[in-house]
């Protein structure tokens, strides 16, 4: 008993047209997103420029506060800052990354300095982000699926507490427990740096040594970040358990585990994925304080030193770098969601 296709045709939306454009849809969406991202990046550039120039106070004093600069540097600086703001802005736009400017602390080009400190930060942050996302999401899934269970209540309590902790304090506590060692706690981890001086970083011993140094700072950031992922994943899965299509799945005879894995989790992951990328802003903040605590020679520690100066050219460059990283992360977040969720693409 089939219905004549004629009965069907009048109600059909252009499903044919849309389903054919699946792949193209994603690429064009990514393109559109990139374009609007460029607008945001421009805003960041402009903001970065004006931030350090339009705020109250004598700009010279700002640049030289607490530092003794030699006559030539001062003269050069004064000449630059005395130009009309419009000219300064054009100059800035031509060279927004101020590649030639020297850091006042290191007396080397700013981007040279940054280049030296980038890698340790990348290693630390990527390790922490991956670990915290994987563990946090797993905890959130288990807690959200069996809402009200002992696991759920315990894990929610623990994650809420972790969420309330300043990450640098957590780092200090871990240091005092596992590096200095008090009472029954063993002080077996190093107190700072990436590697014991003198070791070849590429030798087996060197690699193990570096992992040993990475352990505590990575643990600190992982614990600090996984809390938010666990909480969001849990609440998004709880929302998902109310959806009707899960009843359909169960009615078909699927095991509980499969209902969760195949249907509930993919849908619930969407807001969490977005959050992982959007969190880059907070990841960055965490890096600054935690690197300071562990003397981890990355961009975070560099920022801390730059504040102490204050080394304004360096701060400006770091600020720009972090902001751009967040813009890129946002774009990636949107594209990843579009790749997973077909509703966004149309």
């Amino acid at each position, binding site marked *: *008993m*089939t*219905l*004549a*296709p004629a*009965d*069907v045709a009048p*109600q*059909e*939306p252009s*499903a*044919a047209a*849309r*389903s054919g454009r699946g792949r193209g849809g994603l690429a064009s969406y990514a393109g559109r997103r990139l374009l609007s991202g460029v607008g945001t990046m421009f805003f960041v550039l402009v903001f970065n420029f004006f931030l350090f120039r339009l705020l109250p106070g004598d700009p010279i004093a700002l640049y030289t506060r607490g530092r003794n600069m030699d006559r030539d540097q001062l003269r050069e600086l004064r000449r630059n800052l005395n130009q009309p703001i419009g000219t300064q802005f054009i100059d800035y736009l031509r060279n927004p990354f101020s590649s030639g400017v020297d850091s006042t602390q290191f007396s080397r080009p700013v981007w040279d300095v940054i280049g030296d400190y980038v890698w340790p930060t990348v290693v630390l942050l990527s390790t922490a982000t991956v670990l915290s996302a994987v563990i946090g999401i797993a905890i959130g899934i288990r807690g959200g699926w069996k809402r009200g269970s002992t696991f759920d209540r315990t894990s929610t309590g623990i994650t809420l507490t972790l969420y309330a902790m300043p990450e640098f304090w957590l780092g200090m506590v871990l240091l005092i427990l596992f590096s200095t060692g008090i009472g029954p706690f063993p002080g077996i981890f190093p107190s700072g740096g990436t590697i014991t001086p003198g070791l070849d970083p590429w030798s087996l011993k060197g690699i193990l040594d570096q992992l040993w140094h990475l352990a505590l700072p990575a643990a600190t950031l992982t614990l600090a970040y996984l809390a938010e992922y666990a909480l969001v994943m849990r609440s998004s899965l709880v929302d998902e358990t109310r*959806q*009707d*299509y899960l*009843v*359909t*799945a*169960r*009615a*078909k*005879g*699927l*095991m509980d585990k499969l209902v969760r894995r195949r*249907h509930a989790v*993919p*849908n619930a992951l969407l807001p969490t994925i977005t959050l992982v990328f959007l969190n880059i802003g907070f990841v960055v903040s965490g890096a600054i304080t935690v690197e300071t605590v562990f003397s981890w020679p990355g961009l975070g520690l560099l920022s801390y030193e730059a504040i102490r100066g204050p080394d304004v050219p360096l701060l400006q460059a770091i600020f720009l770098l972090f902001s751009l990283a967040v813009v890129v992360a946002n774009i990636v977040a949107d594209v990843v969601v579009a790749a*997973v*969720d*077909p*509703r966004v693409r*149309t």
Partner: protein
Amino acid sequence: MTLLQLDDVSVTYRTADGPVPAVRGVSLDLEAGSTLGVAGESGSGKSTVAATVLRLNPASSTVTGRVLLDGEDVLKMSFGQLRAVRWAEASIVFQGALHSLNPLQKIGRQVAEPVLLHGQADTRRGAEAMARELLGQVGLPPRLASSYPHQLSGGQKQRVMIAMALACGPRLIIADEPTTALDVMVQAQVLDLLTGLVRDLGVGLVVISHDLSVLGTTCDRLAVMYAGRVVEEGPSADVLARARHPYTRALSAAYPTIGDPAARFSPRGLPGDPPWPGDLPAGCPFHPRCPEAVDVCRTEDVRLRLAAPGHQAACVHVAAEVAT
């Protein structure tokens, strides 16, 4: 043998405010190749009855009684047996226009899922081919299999739900509100499809709806539920034309007969609302709204009584008692 037999089934939900009896002692029969309609307003328990047939009630509920599917009690089956029975023996057509389909998966994959699960096909390819065939059987172009749910209209999604329900060749299909949220034209098409299935495949069909007109045209027998109980049950023509329970009379009177001058002037509708299942009145649950209530209705609840051959009603005004 009777295809489906519900025997004194009761479902109670555990809530923060205490136990709520959604279904209280419901007994229903269905033979293969026939249609049973279950009518009632929201809160009457009709959707809960549907869920109970496949034991899909939430974990916080207690179910008593027997649900016999081809003679076997669903409520006593092990999980393994239950999962095998689900969909292969009996399937449910949910309201597709809402969110009964996974928004992230293509239609074809979702229809193919039970096919693979219950071994109707051995490979993914084979299952998806079967899915396309099923879509054709319900009047949808097979290429819709590579679309996502949000790309389909309400009527199309409802048909997908029907195709999905047919996937494993079940002997019983329960359609829960299959026409709600659909245009009248589409409603008619969906109903034709369902009755066609009964005719051609000999499946048993249970249609649940608040819309009496829908049930009147498609079902052989009709059961009316109120406050978790069946208050009237019999051949649908009889129940509609010669209703013996005041509630049924009020329900069918609520649908005007176009062209009948008398219908334009007769009073319609009932005052008040159906009772909240957790807060039922004493005696007959319908008595606060009943135009024919008498004193005894306030204190004594009434069970189903035989009003005519094959036609029962739970009203004190119906003379004979049902011999149990």
